[in-house]
């Protein structure tokens, strides 16, 4: 850092850049990534992020399982994914290099903390020879920077141990990246001061580390270029950066306001759903009541109890917890109360890979209960859309007096994108009235249009009645074992859910409305599919994209859309669950494309798969 530049670095314009920060879990990579994200977002880039962290809180330092990563893609154009592969990889130690370098394309920039390449760290990462010296990295633009040493030097004179100083090196790395992409440091410095305000030495150290990293970029000769990614041309309005879990929480809060009912949230901590509990527990001044239950069964039980009392009963979990809730969810189907269950999916089965992504609970929420037990299922496609679908979940739950499952996943939950903050006037009124009319009240008498039953809550004089999990007599709601009544009630429950198909937005299509191939997706595959189809359009392919937000029932026009294409491809991060539903319901020969690696699809994977199919379609045309 003693060198002063003799030549000014040149500035190069780029449309899109993808950076991956990788280091030990203790290296603060999630924080570094988040700070870069905020800065890029506030600058006006379109962004998309993918945190990738280990389930173990403290895997042994320097080990391969202890590596934590954060990928951010930022662009001057609209983007839908965090990028297939990084343009720049920042590796803070050998283990981070080892687990990530295969994703870096040849020619990609590789920035390493050379101080961390000690014999001991190399051996923990399983390197026989130092990759910085054996030429194995020569296909990359390698920048070896002694980050630890430079950082420690910048903190001279601070009353901290060497170890404490080393904890700030992620800010040094962030400073380098800020210089490289011409970003301001103000927002991060403000954040540091807020976060560490009570510990001025730590705040000072982090700020100095950040500035030193920036200054290093500016003065050193090793970077010949720095880059500019211009702001994106997003729709006008006020934006913030939002993760799926944040948008889900805010959507639930907004729904409570729009429905004019208090929100009750019962939950038991589980990755990746816990942040919803953390966030909602901070909304006490909105009257939100949160309850950390003893287990997932108690969480849904309490939510049903609150719903019975007329509140908006909400619960969330991930696959293992949803399994525990299934008996109570069946009760909610039987007693027909409005309830929303959030499933933030993660890789299964069993405990699976708790922090990794998968969309493999679809059949579980559809069918994972005893008896025919239909309920509506919806799924947002992007982090920001989690907000709208949270409101949609409640619209359906309240209007049809039914439990609804809302399916997010680890990728949506922790991934972030810029979000156009909606204005309250644009949000729908989803309020419904409780039944209070004494005359001729029967708890299982239904609205002829929606088939919703008359929902009367305790406290309503004259409407005292009993509900429960035993089969109900049609209309009266008394316990009934009558065979014909049971048959009728089963059909009524099914019909009530099926009718919702006419009351949801039709499935819309991006691309030609008929053609060779329709790629049908649901949930967090949206970004990869949309980007893939955009690319296929550039190549002149007759390919369209449709994305289901309503998985039960499907929108009324679903079959018509599917039949407008020669072939249907369904990419899913599971072994073919939506495919199974589509094939069985419509007898359409949809093809699954299934990859379960705990990661979202890349654009390239979907393009390649589509090409394979469209290629054969072309061949069929010729023959």
């Amino acid at each position, binding site marked *: 850092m003693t060198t002063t530049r003799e030549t000014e670095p040149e500035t190069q314009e780029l449309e899109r850049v993808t950076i991956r920060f990788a280091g030990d879990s203790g290296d603060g990579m999630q924080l570094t990534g988040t700070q870069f994200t905020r800065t890029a977002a506030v600058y006006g880039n379109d962004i998309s992020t993918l945190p990738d962290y280990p389930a173990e809180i403290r895997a042994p330092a320097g080990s391969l399982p202890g590596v934590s990563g954060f990928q951010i893609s930022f662009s001057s154009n609209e983007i839908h994914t965090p990028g297939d592969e990084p343009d720049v990889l920042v590796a803070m130690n050998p283990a981070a290099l080892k687990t990530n370098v295969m994703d870096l394309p040849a020619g990609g920039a590789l920035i390493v903390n050379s101080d961390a390449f000690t014999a001991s760290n190399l051996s923990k990462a399983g390197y026989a020879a130092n990759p910085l010296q054996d030429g194995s990295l020569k296909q990359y633009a390698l920048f070896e920077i002694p980050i630890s040493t430079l950082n420690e030097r910048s903190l001279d004179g601070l009353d901290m141990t060497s170890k404490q100083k080393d904890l700030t090196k992620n800010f040094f790395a962030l400073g380098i990246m800020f210089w490289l992409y011409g970003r301001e440091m103000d927002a991060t410095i403000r954040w540091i001061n807020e976060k560490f305000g009570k510990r001025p030495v730590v705040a000072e150290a982090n700020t100095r580390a950040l500035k030193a990293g920036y200054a290093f970029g500016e003065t050193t000769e090793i970077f010949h270029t720095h880059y500019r990614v211009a702001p994106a041309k997003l729709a006008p309005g006020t934006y913030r950066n939002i993760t799926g879990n944040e948008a889900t929480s805010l959507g639930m809060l907004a729904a409570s306001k729009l429905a004019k009912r208090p929100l009750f949230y019962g939950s038991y901590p589980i990755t990746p759903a816990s942040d919803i509990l953390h966030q909602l527990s901070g909304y006490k001044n909105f009257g939100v009541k949160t309850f950390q239950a003893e287990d997932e069964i108690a969480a849904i039980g309490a939510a049903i*109890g609150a719903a019975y009392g007329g509140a908006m009963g909400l619960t969330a979990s991930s696959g293992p917890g949803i399994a525990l809730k299934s008996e109570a969810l069946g009760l909610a189907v039987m007693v027909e109360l409005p309830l929303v269950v959030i499933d933030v999916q993660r890789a299964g089965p069993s405990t699976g890979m708790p922090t990794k992504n998968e969309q493999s609970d679809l059949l579980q929420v559809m069918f994972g209960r005893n008896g025919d037990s239909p309920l509506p299922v919806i799924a947002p496609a992007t982090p920001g859309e989690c907000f709208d679908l949270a409101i949609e979940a409640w619209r359906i739950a309240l209007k049809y007096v039914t439990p609804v499952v809302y399916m997010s996943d680890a990728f949506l939950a922790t991934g972030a994108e810029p979000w156009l903050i909606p204005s309250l006037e644009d949000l729908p009124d989803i309020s419904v009235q409780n039944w209070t009319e004494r005359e001729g009240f029967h708890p299982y008498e239904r609205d002829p249009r929606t088939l919703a039953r008359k929902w009367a809550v305790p406290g309503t004089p004259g409407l005292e009645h*009993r509900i*429960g999990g035993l089969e109900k007599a049609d209309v009266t709601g008394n316990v009934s074992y009558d065979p014909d009544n049971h048959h009728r009630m089963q059909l009524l429950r099914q019909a009530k859910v099926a009718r919702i198909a006419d009351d949801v937005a039709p499935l819309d299509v991006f691309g030609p409305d008929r053609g060779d191939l329709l790629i049908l997706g649901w949930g967090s595959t949206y970004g990869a599919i949309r980007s893939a189809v955009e690319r296929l359009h550039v190549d002149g392919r007759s390919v369209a994209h449709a994305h289901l937000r309503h998985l039960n029932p499907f929108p009324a026009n679903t079959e018509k859309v599917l039949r407008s294409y020669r072939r249907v491809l369904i990419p899913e991060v599971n072994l073919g669950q939506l495919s199974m539903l589509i094939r069985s319901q419509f007898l359409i020969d949809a093809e699954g494309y299934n990859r379960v690696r705990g990661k979202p699809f890349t654009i390239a994977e979907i393009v390649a798969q589509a090409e394979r199919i469209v290629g054969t379609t072309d061949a069929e045309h010729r023959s």
Partner: protein
Amino acid sequence: MTEPTVTRAGSTAPANPPEARVAAPLPAAQPALSPENAAIIQLTRKDFVSDQEVRWCPGCGDYSILAQTQKQMPDFGVPRENIVFISGIGCSGRLPYYMNTYGFHTIHGRAPTLATGLKAARPELMVWVITGDGDALSIGGNHILHSMRRNVDITLVMFNNRIYGLTKGQASPTSEFGKKTKSTPAGTVDTPIQPLTVALAAEASFVARSVDTHTEHLQQTLQRAGMHHGSTFVEVLQNCNIFNDGAWRDFTDREVREDRMLVLEHGKPMIFGKHRDKGIRLRGLHPEVVTIGQNGIAESDLLVHDEQSDEPYLALMLSRMFWPDYPVPVGVLRAVARPTHDQLIGQQISAAVTADGEGDLAAALASGETWTVE
């Protein structure tokens, strides 16, 4: 038997418990529990009888528990529409269908969870939980623990027949060691648990026991239980005449009950027996049955019942006393005042409103860093 005068324990809770560390005052406990209101709303036992046909086996102890409950309801002074009976699964679970109040027959073991959510959402309701020994202590054991420790303001009544009735006679967590049942032909190898010990260990703020056939005592016990604000655990020894007939007969039968049961009264020495000549005194760490007038024992040597002591040592000891080693204690073992779960939740909410103002949705949506695109 003279029961202490009915008090509303919750209303004596400290207005501002130090552990909550918030400025807002504790909201009032469930209102409208009062004999004065009872005089105004003038309901009778009949008002609480639903139109559903009662379907327990003839001779089942559940009939009496239902009848005493219905008889007791008007005294609470709570309008019918503000009363909810929530049950789990088992023969006991049918009770809500027979009460002309709001009712919810839920799933096996989980009634306390629904009651917790309902009470949190609607603190003004009077919520009863009806459960069985299997429902409460086997499949629902976890929820008993947590609803009690949270001091959820529910009146939980556990029908203990020491057997699984509805599923036709398997061993339950209260079946005696070695008990031969359909599922344990060679005798159960599981040590039973004492429900009241569990309730006390779980920090229930009101713990009591009564017997299905002791109608007057049962009514008085239900009366006290219903008036208590907080987690209330009442064990009712109940006879299942089909699958476990006479489970409690040895000490509950008319001829022997005075000699084999100890009727607890707050502030009174623990005396029992037909001739009121037997008593309980403490010897070392153990209770001992003594006869007044023998070996120089006087009434003043006996333990005096204190249901309100801060630490539940005495109540725990009583909960472990059982026939044939000891007379079986009935009545209120413990009744202490503690802020209820719904009060504490309400208090945090008003504290947040006081500190931050009513929530502003637009501000919440725009929280964090924002930027504007022209």
